[in-house]
């Protein structure tokens, strides 16, 4: 009983810490800014409006919904890429505090992910405004988006736990990962309709987890369909798989790698 109560208060403490760390990051980011946190919403809105205008004129009447296709992909992609990129350096950046920090170190990683998630929520507001403007028909498949984002977050957490440790171990990972993201951003067809890719490449891309999260989001919102069983199973498998892998990897390697600091 006692240990249960203890772990409950521990978890509460953890959440509090994460929120504090995130608040500190956000304050620092907008310290010199005039509009401050308002930019968190204004910037994605401006960007989305701009890209919508550009894609509408580029692809014209033929692909009227290309703008939405892009925005949906962009929304999920930025969540994934920002969360993983910033959390990769979370442990290294805060290593000076390790000696005095009594709580688990991975909270630093979680706080970066949480920050990225908060920014994602702001972008969602902008996204909703733009999609309303484009008159997207509401359909029950929209609710699938919550599951999609939730599973994506699990995937991100697992991946970040591995990346953040690896980054301390071998700083090269940052360059490798950045280039990997370059490749990935092209493969998931953010800026192009998928038809442009040759058949065999498309088949390969269908296996990539990040693409699956993006594809699901596009299908749910733009086409009003729920993904098929294979996709759902893949999504869940990837999310849980990477999450567990990440936790196991972290638990087993944390001491060894942190010793190197």
């Amino acid at each position, binding site marked *: 009983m006692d240990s249960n109560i203890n772990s409950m208060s521990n978890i509460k403490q953890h959440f509090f810490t994460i929120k504090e760390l995130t608040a500190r990051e956000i304050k620092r980011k907008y310290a010199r800014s005039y509009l401050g946190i308002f930019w968190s919403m204004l910037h994605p809105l401006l960007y989305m409006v701009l890209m919508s205008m550009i894609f509408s004129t580029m692809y014209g009447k033929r692909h009227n919904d290309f703008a939405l296709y892009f925005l949906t992909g962009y929304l999920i992609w930025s969540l994934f890429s920002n969360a993983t990129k910033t959390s990769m350096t979370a442990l290294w950046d805060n290593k000076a505090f390790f000696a005095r920090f009594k709580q688990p170190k991975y909270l630093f990683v979680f706080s970066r992910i949480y920050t990225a998630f908060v920014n994602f929520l702001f972008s969602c507001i902008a996204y909703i405004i733009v999609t309303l403007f484009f008159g997207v028909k509401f359909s029950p498949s929209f609710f699938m988006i919550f599951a999609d984002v939730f599973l994506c977050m699990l995937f991100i957490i697992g991946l970040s736990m591995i990346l953040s440790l690896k980054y301390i171990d071998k*700083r090269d990972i940052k360059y490798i990962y950045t280039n990997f993201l370059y490749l990935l951003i092209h493969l998931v067809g953010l800026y192009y309709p998928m038809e442009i890719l040759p058949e065999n490449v498309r088949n390969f891309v269908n296996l990539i987890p990040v693409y699956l999260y993006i594809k699901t989001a596009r299908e749910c919102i733009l086409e009003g369909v729920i993904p098929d069983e294979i996709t759902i199973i893949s999504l869940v498998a990837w999310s849980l798989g990477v999450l567990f892998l990440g936790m196991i990897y972290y638990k087993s390697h944390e001491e060894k790698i942190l010793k190197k600091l």
Partner: protein
Amino acid sequence: MRKDINISQYAFVIRQLARKEHIKNTSETRLMELWNVANPLLYMIIMTAFYSTLFLHDIENYPLFFLIGIIHYNFFNGITSGAINSLADNKNFLLTTRLPNNVFLLEKVYSRIIYLFYQSIALVILLIYFRIPVNLSLLCIIPILLVAVFLHTGIGKFLAVWGVLFPDIDYIYSIITTIIFFASGLMYPLSKLSVAARQVIVLNPLFLLVDMTRDCVLYARMPELNSMIKLILTTAFVYVFGTIYFEKSKKEIMMRL
């Protein structure tokens, strides 16, 4: 005499700062300094591999066509976006030493030039691989790049001052660079664009740079003299006024920092 000494000290400081930046970025990695070469190369390989597989339009050698545009855009973006925070971020240095203000901007320019250099090596490899015929017009790349450096530095000077005086300009500028990306004719040749779009794009100096580079690198012909003249005039204007504005704003910057 005194001026000479200043210039060589200048260059020394710039190189030291750039080195410090490189070392900070690559320290404790396996490949170390090699990443400075590997990064641009990898980028080029990924881009080429991707754009080679696309069935995009009927443009010959599309990967190279697009890559030349992207290299110029990244050069422009790297210098100008980096310029915005060059003064604000280095507050300590500027207030406590007697370094001239534009050292940090120049350091950014210097590192981007090095990055460009490595990308050019990759580009040359690609030219050979795709068996692009070249002739002496390739040498035109030198004046083109020279003009590009001055143009971007000039723009950078305005931005560096504004970076201190106007907060949030980095957000606004990132939107602007996105607009510029689509307004520079990077992805399609002019012939494929609407008349209206064409009229706007030819006013863009970045487009002129890209177009002239494509001419002399990809199509082995002399770039248009017209474009070069327009570019030189624009660059001279921007650079001169940028420098004057930069110097005039020194006091205000010091107060704000």
